[in-house]
C-alpha cells in the first residue's frame, strides 16, 4: 500500500501526460518547420505557400492565445483582433521610428515584440477590469464593441514627429502642424507604411513555440488551476478562497498580450498596416480556429489555424465558389471533427499506431526471413 502511494506520488511529480503532449506538439512544429525550410531551400515550395508561412504563425498564435480566454478561462471574447491591432500598431510604430537609429535588427525586433505585447496586455487589463464583470452573451457583445472601438480609433488617428516633439490629431495630416522635415508615422486610414519587414518564418515559429509554452505552463500551475476552477464553477472557486476577479483579468490580459505578439509579427510581415484589417471578421475567424480545434485544446487550435489559413488560398481555382466551398468544408469539419465515431476512428488510426504497426511488420518480415 505504502509503496503504491509512493509510486503514485512519483507519477504525479513527473506530470507525465502534459509533458509528453508538449513534446509531441513542439516536436511536430519543429519537424514541420524543418520540412518547410528544406522545401524552400530545394525550391519545391510554391510562392503561394511561402507567402502564407508567416500568416500561419500569427494566426496560430492568435488561436492559441484566444483559447486561453475562451477554452481555459471559459469567457467568450469577440474582440480579440482589437488586441492584435494594438500590438501591430505599437510594434510597427516603434520599428518605424527606430529603423534609422537602431542597426541591430534582432534587438529592434525583440523590443518591438515586447512593446507590442506590453501595450496589448495593458489594454487587456484596462478592458478586462471593465468587461469581465459580465458573463456569457453580454461579455461577447461588449468585447465585440471594444474590438471595434480600437479599430475605429486607430482608423482616424494621426501621429507625427518633428523637431518639437510628437503631434497627435484625429482629423487629418495637415492638422498635425508638423515642421518641415517632420515625419507622419500613423496616417489615419492609411495606417503605417514602410515598416521594416523583419518577420520571417523562423521568428514566427519561435514565437509560436514560446506562446504555446507560456500558456501550457500557465495552465499547469497554481494560477492555471485557479483559472480553470473559475471556468468550471465560479461559486465553488470563490468558496475556497480563489480571487475570481484577479485570475479572470490575469488570463484575459495574458491572452491580450500574446495577441499583441501576433500583431507585431503581422505588421512586420507586410508593407502597410491598416486598422480595417482587424475588424470583427478577424475576431470571428480566430474564434472559428479555436472552436474547430477544440476548446482548451492548444494543439487543435494550431492545426485548425494552419489548415484554415491554407485552405482558402488553395480553393482559389474555384473562383466565385471559393467562399461557398470554404463554408461547406467548415460546416463538415465542425460536424465531423468532434463526432464520437470520428474521435474513435482517430484513436484507432492514430499516427502512433500506424508507426508501430509498420515497425512490427518489419520485425515480422525479418523474423520470417
Amino acid at each position: 500500500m505504502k509503496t503504491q502511494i509512493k509510486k503514485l506520488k512519483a507519477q504525479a511529480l513527473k506530470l507525465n501526460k502534459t509533458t509528453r503532449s508538449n513534446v509531441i506538439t513542439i516536436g511536430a512544429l519543429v519537424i514541420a518547420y524543418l520540412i518547410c525550410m528544406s522545401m524552400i531551400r530545394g525550391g519545391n515550395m510554391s510562392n503561394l505557400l511561402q507567402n502564407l508561412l508567416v500568416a500561419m504563425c500569427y494566426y496560430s498564435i492568435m488561436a492559441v492565445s484566444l483559447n486561453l480566454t475562451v477554452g481555459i478561462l471559459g469567457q467568450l471574447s469577440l474582440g480579440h483582433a482589437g488586441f492584435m491591432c494594438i500590438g501591430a500598431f505599437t510594434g510597427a510604430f516603434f520599428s518605424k521610428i527606430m529603423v534609422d537609429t537602431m542597426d541591430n535588427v534582432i534587438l529592434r525586433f525583440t523590443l518591438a515584440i515586447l512593446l507590442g505585447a506590453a501595450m496589448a496586455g495593458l489594454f487587456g487589463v484596462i478592458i478586462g477590469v471593465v468587461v469581465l464583470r459580465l458573463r456569457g452573451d453580454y461579455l461577447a457583445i461588449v468585447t465585440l464593441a471594444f474590438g471595434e472601438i480600437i479599430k475605429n480609433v486607430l482608423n482616424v488617428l494621426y501621429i507625427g514627429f518633428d523637431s518639437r516633439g510628437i503631434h497627435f490629431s484625429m482629423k487629418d495630416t495637415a492638422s498635425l502642424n508638423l515642421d518641415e522635415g517632420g515625419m507622419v508615422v500613423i496616417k489615419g486610414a492609411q495606417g503605417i507604411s514602410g515598416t521594416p519587414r523583419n518577420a520571417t518564418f523562423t521568428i514566427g515559429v519561435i514565437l509560436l513555440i514560446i506562446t504555446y509554452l507560456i500558456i501550457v505552463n500557465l495552465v499547469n500551475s497554481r494560477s492555471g488551476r485557479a483559472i480553470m476552477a473559475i471556468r468550471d464553477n465560479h461559486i465553488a472557486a470563490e468558496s475556497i478562497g480563489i480571487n475570481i476577479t484577479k485570475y479572470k483579468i490575469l488570463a484575459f490580459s495574458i491572452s491580450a498580450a500574446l495577441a499583441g505578439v501576433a500583431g507585431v509579427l503581422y505588421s512586420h510581415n507586410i508593407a502597410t498596416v491598416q486598422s480595417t484589417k482587424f475588424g470583427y471578421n478577424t475576431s470571428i475567424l480566430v474564434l472559428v480556429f479555436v472552436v474547430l480545434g477544440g476548446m482548451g485544446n492548444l494543439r487543435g487550435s494550431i492545426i485548425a489555424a494552419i489548415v484554415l489559413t491554407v485552405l482558402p488560398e488553395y480553393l482559389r481555382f474555384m473562383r466565385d465558389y471559393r467562399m461557398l466551398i470554404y463554408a461547406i468544408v467548415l460546416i463538415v469539419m465542425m460536424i465531423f471533427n468532434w463526432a464520437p465515431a470520428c474521435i474513435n476512428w482517430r484513436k484507432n488510426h492514430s499516427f502512433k499506431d500506424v508507426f508501430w504497426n509498420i515497425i512490427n511488420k518489419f520485425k515480422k518480415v525479418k523474423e520470417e526471413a
Partner: protein
Amino acid sequence: MEMLSVKNIGISFGGLHAVDSFSITINKGELYGLIGPNGAGKTTVFNLLTGVYKPDMGQILLDGANITGLSTIEINKAGIARTFQNIRLFKNMSVLDNVKCGLHNDYKYSSASGIFRLPSYYRTEKIMNNRAYEILEVFGLEKEAKYLSANLPYGKQRKLEIARALATDPKLLLLDEPAAGMNPSETEELMATIRLIRKQYDVTILLIEHDMKLVAGICEKIFVLNFGIELANGLPQDVLNDPEVIKAYLGE
C-alpha cells in the same frame, strides 16, 4: 472555547424573512447538526455564514474575530469552508487538481514563476502534491487522483468536495446535506469519514442533513430551524423527542 458565535443574524428577501434572528454558539471541536423541514432557511444560514448573502442584521464571530459582512473569499481565508447541496466540483479537472485548488491560498508562488518554471514552482508544487495526496488518502481517493472528477461515482464526488474544503485548512467546516442521494451503506461510510476527519484535523463541523440516522448518529448537538426561526436547540435525544419538532416534521 467558542469557535463560532452568531448573534441574531437575519435576512429578508422582499417581504419574506428567510432567516430571522438566528443565534447559535458552537464550541471548538463540536459537531453540530442543523435540521429543519424543506424551506426552513438552512442553506440560507450557510450562505449568510459564508458571505454569499450579507446579513441585514446581527453579528458573526469566528474564533473571536468579527467576520460579519466580509466577502466569501475573505471568510474562507478567515477559516470557514463549505460544501454544497448540489455538488459543485471542478468537473473538467482531475481529482488531484480539485484538492490542489483548495490549497491555493496556503501554498503560494507567483504566476510568473509558474509560467517560467522557476525553482519556487517545483518546490511548491512538490509540497502541494504531497499535501493533496495526504488529504486524498484520508478519504480513500488516492487511487483515483488522476481521474477526471466528473467521472467519479456519486459518493466519491461528495467525499472529494469535503476533501477540497478541508484542503483550505478551515477552522469551521460547513457541510450542506453531505448524505443527500446516498444509499445506506454510502451513508455509513460517510459517517465514518466525518468521524475520521474530526480526529485527524482540528476542525469544528456544522452540518445540514435530512437523514435522521446520520444526524442522531454523529451529531453532538442539534439545532432545529423552522420558517427561519429557532424551534429547538440542544442534545439530540432531547431535540428529536421534542413534540414541537415532531409536529414541524410530521404535521399535526
